[in-house]
């Protein structure tokens, strides 16, 4: 079993590993009101964040959101314009990259082309001035960990992209850093290899017990590998949470929309029970009811975010469902294992409903322009104020 898997395993109601929930836990990395500007451009805007030991932490966001700048500040290639970055309780602003117990795996891998795989992995160890036997032993361990023993004598241009990626990982892990930074580590791999490598990364993270911070723009990758995800936009952190909470309980339309597919219905709210609200999304339609722990005032405008797979679609009007809407099938996206139905409501909004294709395509009973019913429960969606 993989440790990372426990983090959000629903069968274990209390997470095994959650130092962020422990108020006494000391973070390994602390960003304190960090701002970084390049000329007029603010890459990081007054950002505060704690990352704990043994975490597999993902910085997720579109390109230009500042995630790479954060990583480069941790590595020591950039200095914060304002604020303080602590590593294990010490301010690291004045520590140059070569003196930090932090190693980085570069997006381009940055393998030294004139050195063999073996020498690449030994590079950092040799700089520490360790004796030859200790270096050789450590390099062998790293080769074994990344299954590269056969390629030790090859030069980087003589191995495949996936192998290069593993050399880069082995090289950055060789010095046993407190913190390993991974900059889009799987970006150059094809989809199939990327998926395998994600699990490999998690395995290695668990085996070595190193804290990993990964930068990625691929939300699936972040969801798969990370213990916690920080969703970033324009130099700010929008939400930091476990992957399941980021997906199920996003705190803003931005986060809901960035992670996965989502329907957003805009409207105004009126309270209709304890922690329950009616969303008036169209003037001549019955309101939708949704539960929310967050307080809202009557008449406040809000957004209901609901995932397509939580919307059920029916040909006949169903009985005993919480929210029931009627509409017309506008489009069907067939994805093989799933089908997404785009249903147009009388008010013009389009709601996507995703259904697992448990039957063969030829047996599908809903088709274009059919009148259908869609439904979801009170707790299926999330009410958001921004």
């Amino acid at each position, binding site marked *: 079993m993989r440790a990372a898997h426990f983090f959000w395993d629903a069968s274990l109601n209390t997470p095994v590993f959650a130092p962020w929930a422990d108020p006494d836990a000391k973070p390994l990395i602390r960003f304190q009101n960090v701002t970084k500007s390049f000329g007029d451009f603010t890459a990081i805007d007054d950002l505060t964040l704690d990352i704990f030991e043994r975490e597999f932490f993902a910085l997720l966001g579109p390109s230009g959101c500042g995630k790479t700048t954060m990583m480069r500040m941790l590595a020591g290639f950039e200095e914060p314009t304002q604020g303080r970055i602590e590593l294990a309780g010490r301010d690291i602003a004045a520590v140059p*990259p070569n003196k930090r117990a932090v190693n980085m795996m570069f997006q381009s891998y940055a393998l*030294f082309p004139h050195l063999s795989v073996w020498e690449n992995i030994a*590079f*950092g160890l040799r700089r520490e001035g360790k004796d030859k036997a200790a270096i050789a032993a450590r390099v062998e361990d790293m080769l074994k960990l990344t299954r590269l023993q056969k390629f030790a004598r090859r030069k980087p241009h003589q191995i495949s992209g996936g192998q290069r990626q593993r050399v880069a990982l082995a090289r950055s892990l060789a010095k046993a850093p407190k913190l390993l930074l991974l900059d889009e580590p799987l970006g150059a791999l094809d989809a199939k290899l990327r998926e395998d490598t994600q699990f490999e990364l998690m395995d290695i993270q668990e085996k070595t017990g190193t804290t990993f911070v990964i930068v990625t723009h691929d939300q699936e990758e972040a969801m798969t590998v990370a213990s916690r995800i920080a969703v970033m936009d324009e130099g700010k952190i929008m939400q930091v949470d476990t992957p399941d909470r980021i997906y199920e309980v996003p705190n803003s339309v931005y986060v809901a929309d960035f992670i996965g597919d989502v329907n957003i219905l805009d409207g105004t709210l009126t309270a209709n029970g304890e922690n329950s609200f009616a969303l008036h999304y169209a003037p001549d339609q019955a309101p939708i009811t949704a539960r929310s722990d967050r307080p809202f005032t009557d008449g406040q405008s809000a957004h209901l975010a609901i995932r397509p797979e939580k919307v059920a679609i029916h040909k006949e009007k169903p009985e005993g469902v919480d929210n029931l809407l009627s509409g017309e099938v506008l489009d069907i996206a067939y994805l093989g294992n799933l089908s997404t139905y785009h249903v147009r409501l009388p008010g013009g909004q389009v709601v996507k409903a995703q259904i697992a294709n448990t039957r063969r395509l030829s047996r599908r009973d809903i088709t274009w322009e059919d009148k259908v019913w869609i439904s979801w429960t009170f707790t299926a969606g999330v009410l958001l104020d921004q």
Partner: protein
Amino acid sequence: MRRAALIAVPYAWLLALFLVPFAIVFKMSLSDIAIAIPPYTPTLKDGLAEMIRAFDFENYVFLTEDDLYWKAYLSSLKIAAIATVLTLLVGYPMAYGMARAPEEWRPTLMMLVILPFWTSFLIRVYAWIGILSTEGFLNQFLLWTGLISAPLTILNTAAAVYIGIVYTYLPFMILPIYAALDRMDGSLIEAAEDLGCSRLSAFWLVTFPLSRGGVIAGCLLVFIPALGEFVIPSLLGGSGTLMIGKVLFEEFFNNRDWPVASAVAVILLLILIIPIVLFQLNQQKQAEADR
């Protein structure tokens, strides 16, 4: 078919303008000096068989007997080697600076390196006489600043030859090194620093080895022409500087001993073949590494 025709053009060119003249020079080096036109014997006029019978290696033997020649070869090798090292010391930092300069500056910097080629090589060497002579600009400037009280003798010394060679061949050193440094991925230096290198050790362990191909190419591009250089030592070096190019010139034009001059030229070419082959091997290795 069209490719063959395309390739045939440069080969025909090389054959007509390099191999044939070389064969003639080699033939001449086997003959003897004569008071005639041309000033050597035997020639084809004596008949092919007679001519070949009269060929001997006398001139080559002569080169080993008179110590002027091997001293000139050795002195040329020494001057070319030292000048190459000096050019490297000046050129590498310049190439490095160019490769590290902001992207928008690089075409201008490149232009400045190539700019001297727009003026005739001879004029530029003559200009150095004006700078380096006892009454030259350099001495006048140094006297004016008070750094020296009597003018320095630079012209007609080995130092002037080194200055001339470094100045003339600098672009040949800078361009291949710049090309190698420019190709290098900047994240390699960051990776080296990340793994514990200081700036300096990152340079010696990563930057320099990766630019080695450019350094070798640059050194050979300077060394090969500098070895046979004639204009610079004769204009700037005075009578005290012994270089084989000068000996060759004097043998041909002052002594009118074409056979010995030809022998000197053939030996010079044989010496140059070694660095030329090394240069080719280096280029091949570079091409392979890039693939």
